[in-house]
């Protein structure tokens, strides 16, 4: 489960949407150099302008004239700072629009020697975040990105990106096959004052524990998650998937299939990440029950319909290669392996 990754992606995509809308309206937010105050872009598509006076993982306070405006970080998409270097602006926009290679190129050209305070922190975060996103897509090494993020949370524990950075570290550790180490990072998110983050924290921890084979501990954590009414639809669906994963861990594939199929019935087919993860789990359950053809169909859903989730796609391709082999289709197995190697060179599934 990459629920925190989903979260980050969600916020990034929303931002991308805002940017596009702004462009359509003739006001280019890309022209950052013209901004004379710090600008906090909100998830509600609004902006708050002022000078950032104070920053903690939970809130950012802006001052404009004599008035101070606190903004909780869960509502923030990004902050643009007065007179920031254009390369930093470009890198930030590249990250929020999912152009991670561009972000890394821009940051490579950024002279950080003169940066300090919030600007230095932002540069460090986006450099690490872009690397992490590429690593999660199997396009760069995980360790390098993880080190950068770890440095960031250590150096800037009061930065508004703090929770996001912790999420990404957790996701990277899971992707690297070290879910046990991810638990602590996901747990950090639970220190945020918002119920949604707290639920996310438990979901992330449970996900890592399940991946680590600690099914009972994961189930206990899931039991502590807020009542269903307090959860977002996404979180509810994620919990269902975790339950299914828990059943698979307990070698109850048929029950897991029932749960996943029920979950899929209530999930929009456009939810790429959820669907991709659900079909992969479905594939795992069918494999466990030795229904290889059904497993093939499940993984093919990811390969053909939901390849947009890189991690899930790599997992599906790896499984498809094995299943095609088992089904005496070596040419298809070879194809899946080639795709896996070419697209997800650094993925742990490409081993």
């Amino acid at each position, binding site marked *: 489960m990459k629920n925190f990754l989903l979260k980050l*992606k969600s916020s990034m*995509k929303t931002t991308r949407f805002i940017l596009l809308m702004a462009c359509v309206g003739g006001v280019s937010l890309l022209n950052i150099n013209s901004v004379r105050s710090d600008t906090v872009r909100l998830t509600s598509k609004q902006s708050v302008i002022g000078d950032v006076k104070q920053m903690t993982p939970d809130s950012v306070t802006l001052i404009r004239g004599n008035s101070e405006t606190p903004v909780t970080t869960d509502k923030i998409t990004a902050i643009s700072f007065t007179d920031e270097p254009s390369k930093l602006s470009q890198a930030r926009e590249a990250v929020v629009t999912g152009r991670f290679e561009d972000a890394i190129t821009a940051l490579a050209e950024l002279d950080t020697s003169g940066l300090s305070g919030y600007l230095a922190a932002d540069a460090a975060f986006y450099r690490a975040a872009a690397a992490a996103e590429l690593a999660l897509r199997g396009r760069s090494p995980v360790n390098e990105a993880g080190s950068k993020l770890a440095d960031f949370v250590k150096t800037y524990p009061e930065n508004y990106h703090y929770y996001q950075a912790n999420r990404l570290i957790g996701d990277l550790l899971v992707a690297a096959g070290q879910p046990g180490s991810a638990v602590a990072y996901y747990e950090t998110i639970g220190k945020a004052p918002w119920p949604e983050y707290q639920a996310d924290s438990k979901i992330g921890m449970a996900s890592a524990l399940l991946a680590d084979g600690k099914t009972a501990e994961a189930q206990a954590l899931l039991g502590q998650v807020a009542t269903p009414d307090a959860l977002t639809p996404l979180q509810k669906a994620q919990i269902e998937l975790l339950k299914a994963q828990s059943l698979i861990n307990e070698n109850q594939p048929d029950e897991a299939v029932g749960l996943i199929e029920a979950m899929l019935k209530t999930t929009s087919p456009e939810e790429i990440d959820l669907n991709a993860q659900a079909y992969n789990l479905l594939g795992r359950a069918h494999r466990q029950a*030795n229904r290889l053809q059904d497993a093939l169909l499940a993984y093919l*859903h990811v390969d053909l*319909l939901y390849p*947009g989730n890189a991690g899930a796609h790599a997992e599906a391709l790896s499984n498809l290669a094995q299943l095609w082999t*088992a089904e005496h289709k*070596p040419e*298809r197995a070879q194809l899946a392996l080639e795709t896996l190697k070419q697209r997800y060179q650094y993925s742990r599934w490409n081993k």
Partner: protein
Amino acid sequence: MVRNRKTQAEMIPSFSDLRKNSGSIEGPTGARSIVRIRWTLVLLVLLSAGFTSKSQAEEQWQPFLESLRTAGYHDMAIFYLDRMAARPDCPPQLLEVLDYERGITLLSQPVSTREEQLEKLTKTTELFERFRKDHPDHPNATKAQTQLANVLIERGRLLVTDADAPGVTPEQRDKGIAEARQFYDDAKKVFQEQDVRLTEELKNWPEPKTAMEIEQRDALRADFLQTRLSLATADYEIGMTYPATAPERKTLLESAAKQYKDLYDKYGSFLAGLYARMWEGRCYQKLENFNLATDAFESIMMQADDSQAFRTLKNKSTALLIETLIDPKVKRYQDAINFYADWEKGRPPSDASTPEGLEIRYLSALASLELARSLEADNKDRKKLLIDARGSLRFVMRFPGETRTRARQTMADPLLAVDEGQRQEPQDFAEALELGRAALDKIEIAQIRQQMGQEALSQEELQKITDEAEQEAFGYFEQAIQLAQPETPVEEVNQARYYLAYLSFKQGDLYRAVVFSDFLARRFPNSAVGRPASKIAMAAFAAMMSQPGITPEQKDFAERRMSQAAAYIVAVWPNSSEATEARKILVHSALRQEDIPQAIAMVEQIPPDAPGRGPLQLLVGRALYAEYVRQMTKQSAESPDETNKNEPEAETPSQASPLNAEELLDQAKSLLVSGLKLSIEEGKIDRSFLAGELTLARIYLNEGSDAAAFNLVEHPDTGLLALAQSSDSTIVEGDLDIEAYKTSLRALVAVRELEKASRVMELLENRVAQTAGTSGGTQLMQIYVSLAQELQQTLEMLQKSGKTEEANQVRAGFEQFLDRVSSSSESTSFNVMQWIAATYNGLGHSFDTKGGSVLSPEAKGYYEKSAAVYEKIIKQYGDDESFAPSVEAIDTIEIHLAICLRELGRYNEALKHLFNVLQYRNTMVDAQMEAASTYQAWAGNEGKAHLYLNAMLGGASRTRKSDGAKANVFWGWGALSKRLARDKQHRDLFHDARYNLALCRYKYAISDACKERQKNLEAAQLDIKVVARLYPEMGGAEMKAKYEALSKKIEQALKK
């Protein structure tokens, strides 16, 4: 948010979106190329997908299905449709169009052979017709009609291909072409009718106001566009049936090109319009206006859109462009190679194995080959071009389909064989592996050359080529292993190991085959070669077992390792076809090791639909029944050897089974029933089936389920009677048919089908007469005796299990039948009469109160009937000696009659008949034993203790001719036991005689007739002691217990 991420499903456009995207469009097919405008569906699929309403909760079947087809996973698409159809929550929209979608999937599936294509078209026609019949008002009904017309086009195309095949006479060709044109014309008529209708509908279509109305209008437009494309393609196809120089061809191709151009001009911003442009180019290509053709193809390749749908179109155009460039009239081979190189550089991995990708690769091979041909032999580029061509062709040959066939044929080009005759020294692993593969290709190439008439090789020559190629390949693969480096991909090293395993096996080097294959199977079970290697390992061990001159130790080793290999396959790939084969081996192994639970477990693990499960169930079922019989026999001291002596042989466990007799029987029955059913479904009617059916019928008869037994007998195709009369040697072997007749006879009598029973008797007699010749009479007599014994055994079983009613019914049935046979004029034959007598005797036995001295009235009645028939036989023999097959047969009758008379208490008469036999055949042991038994029974039952002396010492003395001395005709137990002691084979009989000797001595001793009680008792005791000293096992546990019991009695008597 996440929900903003769009799926491919959502991206599939409606008609008005076609400008931008997406889905896949197939085109009309040409004679021999990927762009052979396969004119089917595509647009229809594309558009119908666009109209799918997207429920949040619904399975995205349409985009998934389309994706599967586009990726070439047609088999999975069919599996997916089957799975969805079986689900209770299958979307109703999908349920409605299942046949349509199956038809679309099949029609777009590539096939390799003409037969497959023909089968595909037949099946597709059925599907579309059924869809139209079941859903006449469905929006896809029109599309289905279009698809049916497309099938006509495909059929026409097939005929055109046939007409161009080698060896077709001009007359045959003309006929085929004429038929093809007829198909095309029929299809064109359908398209024309649709065009008229759709034009009219569109003209009258009101301006749409709602989204639904817009969708409906778009669907109509899509149909219209597709129809126009189809019309153009029909002209193209008809044009292509004429010779290149024919004016008709030129006219029709120009007409098609114009129609395509019109569509492109009007709809050029749509994907469908671009397809029209490609097909326009195709017409120019065929008109040999190559510049216009390449312009058309290149204009499509320059399209910026790189979505899947556009990539497919661009790939098709690339293939057409290369095909045009390598045309013998164009000969721009280097340009073709350059276009291929550009394509190769920019393609995603998934494009490599699509039909278009394979075609491009194949055409690139042709380009390299032809360019190489145009160069001088010493040109340095020539070798590289030929290597490229071989590499591309080998790649294409990895994938099934029509392109593979052409690649194989091209591989047979003599130019590609240049340099291949000399052994090359590989420099690295990859080169060695490739050279090994190339060596193996020589075999296939030789076969293709042979098929294509390029070479006329004798079978020996072909074999020589094969042997040499395999030898050469073996050397290269061995070198490859040596050249492998740590960074060499392990999958490729394993490929080399697998080849070595396979070639070793083929060459009979079984130990080497086992080393490679077992290593791969166990160390790399998840690799592509793991499972096939396990199969080689198993086969190699099996081959070892049947090698001539194998020692018992070697055989034991091979068998053990084969079982281990099989167990490994079952554990690692439990659902594979190899596991099914492995389980069969394990079942046999378990039966040999007398491990019944393991045999059952293995057979139960075989999937119900796996081939071979049925026969295996029959085998295990029979083994279980044999074990049941063994247990029952053990429990009963009666008739220990007769219970299953006619059972068809099965691998019979003799160790104690953990199942009790009842469980064994239930399990055996269940396996036999299921095994027969599965075997019938599999069409596996053979000896194993007949044996299984026979066993089950006997079980039914023994438990009184006569009707069930009758059903097994009577089935017209697979019943015992039908199979017994089969001339198929795979069904009837040995005397299995005789056993089938016997059991059929019993079943028919049991259900009172007496006419049929009589007929079966005739069949049985004919069968024996045909095969046994002069010994037929004796054999038939034995058959009838065994039949009577089986009946007796059944009656005893029924009575033992408390089924008195069933037992009575069986008796009544037989009595009725026997009476009927006796009274018929045909009943006078010796064998029938002796069977009647034996059966009456058996019936009497079933009423006999064992151990009691008084016969029940029923038993007495049957014995009397039996004796009467025996006496009649003897009398008829006295009247006419030819009545019996031999004098020995009459002796046997006399003995049986004596036994019968003894049961009736007519001891004197019994001895008289035994005398008749023994006076001439004094050494006939069974008659001697019956005589002693008769004296003993007479003494015991009528209180004539002095007769115990006859039982012990014999009687009926007479003067021996040889020396004039007196000698007893009847030996008595004493003389009998002495003679039997010499013969190990009759040890059981010896113990019977010896025991009875002691018993008679004891009984005589304690009787009033005895004057020397002590002496006789001590003699009796000594009889037993001598046995114990000479034969410590004392004839086994059962006999020993009898000796010991008697010994105790004697001891007690001695104490008195």
